[in-house]
């Protein structure tokens, strides 16, 4: 019994020590000073050298030489590697006309340069000097796009909406698509004819976790009922179809795919604009302080000014004006 108590006491002290150390280190900007004063010795490589390339490239402005294909720092030399999540949903990625699949992609095939984000990806690559064969696609789940550590992509195109908080952890490019959030309900729902945000107040809405769609529910609709939040749009669509929730908020292109393909008897009621919501845009995700970011931004700027972005949007996302805007 006594030895048990001893073990418990030692264990408790150890836990307190560990927690205290972690907190102490957590509140410090660098672990270096604590390392030198601690009694235990451990082979600590890189204790003195600071984290590499933290701010060196910050000031680099896009110039033709810095963005020359040969001087770009790439995940795989000679290849422009683009990440997105799998399944790759239409209309951002489309399946091949002959239905053949490219492993491991489901639903849409990013490698065929059709679908909005696939086409934008190849267009950016083209501006940077890469041929179609020099573009590689990798599966990058949403959370992995900004997880710490080395990236396995050069840029990630996954309908990521720009937020200032997000830009502190990863580089977010200038917008390649500007669009609104919209509301999808069942055709027989009392909300099917709603024209104002006020008419939506007393209902339950769902959205995918981590999206600006969720922000739209909380900040724009401000419903009296708690929102339901799902891992995927598919789960939210399932709940809408079963009547568990009254409507789901998604970006317009996704709403188009849902109402046309995924969920029978559903319809887009309207889109949210203004009302305090910041104008939404999709950004490519890059590693924090990536030297590639200014190059991607100048590529996007060029595609914008020559009208390519608008042309791709109207080719693959051709319904924007038909959806009414909610009044307050």
């Amino acid at each position, binding site marked *: 019994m006594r030895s048990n108590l001893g073990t418990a006491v030692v264990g408790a002290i150890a836990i307190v020590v560990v927690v205290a150390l972690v907190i102490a280190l957590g509140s410090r900007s660098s672990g270096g000073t604590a390392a030198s004063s601690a009694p235990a010795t451990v082979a600590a490589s890189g204790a003195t050298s600071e984290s590499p390339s933290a701010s060196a490239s910050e000031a680099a402005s896009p110039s033709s030489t810095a963005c020359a294909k040969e001087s770009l720092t790439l995940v795989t030399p000679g290849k422009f590697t683009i990440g997105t999540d799998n399944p790759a949903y239409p209309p951002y990625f489309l399946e091949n006309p002959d239905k053949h699949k490219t492993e491991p992609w489901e639903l849409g095939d990013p490698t065929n340069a059709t679908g909005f984000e696939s086409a934008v990806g190849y267009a950016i690559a083209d501006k940077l000097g890469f041929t179609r064969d020099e573009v590689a696609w990798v599966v990058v789940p949403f959370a992995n796009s900004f997880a*710490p550590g080395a990236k396995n992509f050069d840029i990630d195109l996954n309908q990521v909406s720009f937020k200032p908080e997000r830009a502190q952890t990863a580089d977010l490019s200038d917008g390649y698509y500007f669009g609104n959030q919209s509301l999808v309900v069942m055709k027989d729902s009392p909300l099917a004819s709603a024209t104002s945000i006020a008419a939506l107040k007393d209902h339950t809405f769902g959205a995918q976790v981590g999206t600006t769609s969720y922000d739209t529910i909380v900040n724009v609709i401000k419903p009296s009922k708690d929102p339901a939040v799902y891992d995927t749009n598919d789960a939210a669509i399932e709940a809408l179809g079963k*009547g568990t929730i009254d409507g789901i908020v998604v970006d317009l292109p996704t709403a188009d795919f849902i109402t046309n393909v995924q969920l029978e008897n559903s319809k887009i009621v309207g889109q949210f604009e203004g009302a305090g919501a910041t104008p939404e845009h999709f950004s490519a995700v890059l590693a924090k302080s990536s030297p590639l970011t200014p190059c991607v931004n100048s590529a996007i700027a060029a595609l914008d000014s020559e009208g390519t972005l608008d042309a791709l949007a109207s080719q693959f996302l051709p319904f924007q004006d038909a959806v009414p805007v909610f009044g307050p």
Partner: protein
Amino acid sequence: MTTIDARRRHERRRALRASALALGSTIVVFGGLILLVVNSPGWAEVQRSFLDDRVFADALPSVVRSFAVNIQLFVAAEVLVLVFGLFIAVLRSLPGPVFFPVRIMATVYADIFRAIPGVLVIFLLGFGIPGLGLVDPKTPSIIYGVAALTLVYSAYVSEVYRAGIDSVHPSQDAAARSLGLSRWQSLRHVVIPQAIRRVIPPLLNDFIGLQKDTVLVSFIGVVEIFRQAQIKQAAAFNFTPYMAVALVFVVLTIPLARLTDVLIARDRRRAAGGKA
């Protein structure tokens, strides 16, 4: 007398030295691990992503508030599991050939719900039941969460109860029956009370598991502690909110784990015939 004193002193010294050694080696091992981690090349980035105090301070209040949903989930499920698990265990323990189909049903139930991953049961109930059209589609999803957790954990707990019932010596039942108690009265007043007392520690163990599994209910749209942290995580591109969740569960679970240890130790002392 003096030799006994000397021996006591010696024993005390030895215990003290053992504790000091344990403390020392613990500090060296954990300190070494910590130093290894904080001096790794990517530490600064990991620290920014997982240990950002501003994000932590921002996330903690909403994360703690949404823990109320988890508390509702596990309190409701635990009460139901205690009752339903015992019911299943009793069904499985019913003697006699007449009750064979009942025993089979109870056995199949326990097998199936221990086999299916909990998250699948939650999914199947959360998205399947509303589709049947038998219940109000507006039934809050948290109800399906409680139902799923109850189904899964009753299967585990019924096995715990059964082990407890089996551990009561048959002579107890025989004695009760010889005193004129019916089979049911013997079970109710003699066997089950002894069984339950014995299985309290493993029951608490299962409840620790249940409490942690309440986060799985987020899969069907319920905004509980994990989903709230995920919302914060995705908004800031920073994983620190998950540390707040971990902290809440540690604070909840460690006292329960220690209580379980104390109860087990007390049981062992009782079984050994020492002072209770």
